[in-house]
């Protein structure tokens, strides 16, 4: 049986890139009466099941996936967690 690892990738817009969806959510929260929401940024969570047993190799592989496809590094940043 192949060992499996789970990876979780968070993709967020880089700081300074305007997030119109986050701004809309912030506005809606204010309309609902939630006070003091000073900022909202919306991103994506991508979970992967990997047929791998070595954490370092898996992390390097997922970072390569982020660079090539999962994030657009012109405007997005990402973090990788291996569990």
């Amino acid at each position, binding site marked *: 049986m192949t060992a499996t690892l789970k990876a979780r990738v968070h993709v967020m817009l880089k700081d300074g*890139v*305007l997030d*119109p*969806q986050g701004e*809309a959510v912030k506005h809606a929260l204010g309309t609902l009466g939630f006070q003091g929401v000073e900022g909202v940024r919306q991103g994506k969570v991508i979970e992967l099941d990997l047929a791998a047993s070595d954490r370092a190799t898996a992390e390097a592989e997922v970072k390569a996936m982020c660079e*090539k*496809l*999962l994030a*657009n590094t*012109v*405007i997005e940043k990402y973090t990788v967690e291996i569990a």
Partner: protein
Amino acid sequence: MKAAVITFPGSNCDRDLAVAFEGAGAAVTRVWHKDADLPAGTDIVAIPGGFSFGDYLRCGAIAAQSPVAAAIKAFAAKGGHVLGICNGFQVLTETGLLPGVLMRNAGLKFVCKTIDLRVETANSAFTNLWDKGAIARMPVAHHDGNFTIDAEGLARLRDEDRIAFTYAANPNGSTADIAGVLSANRRVLGMMPHPERMAEAAHGGTDGSVLFRSLLAALALA
């Protein structure tokens, strides 16, 4: 002039684009996204509008990794001409053939209307039959047309005269009102508006046909 019009799952302007090229006098071959080779003798590759791969992950991101995208990159690297309209523009930024990125419209709404464009350069195979500063009327229909580029990238586009079209009234929040940009070698154009939807009298105008006739004038002689 031989044009190759690409179809991805979810493309929906591919037939209109083929008809517009044929209307200008081009011979058109339709190419499926799984094809790893372009037809021999292709002068221009055209990537249509639509919702390739359902806009999953990011608009154009999955299409940019398809077999035909690798062929298009190789074609462009050899100096081939490539036109990307709407989703095709998004695919071209995702492949890295054009700079910048198309973000969600600043107003968060899908924008579908006919608008005025300003032709910012006549110095390209796509725009040579227009005069610089001419107004061209064409439809836009997109949710993610907010062209975004950093200050350094914008300065480079301006210095190199690579902004092809701007909006007379910005519908989506794009940087510097940009509607279309050229690659450094001026042979790749991405634009959000749809010239193929304003290419014959029955469309309500023919301003878009100027782009296809410009290409024919430039490439038929090449």
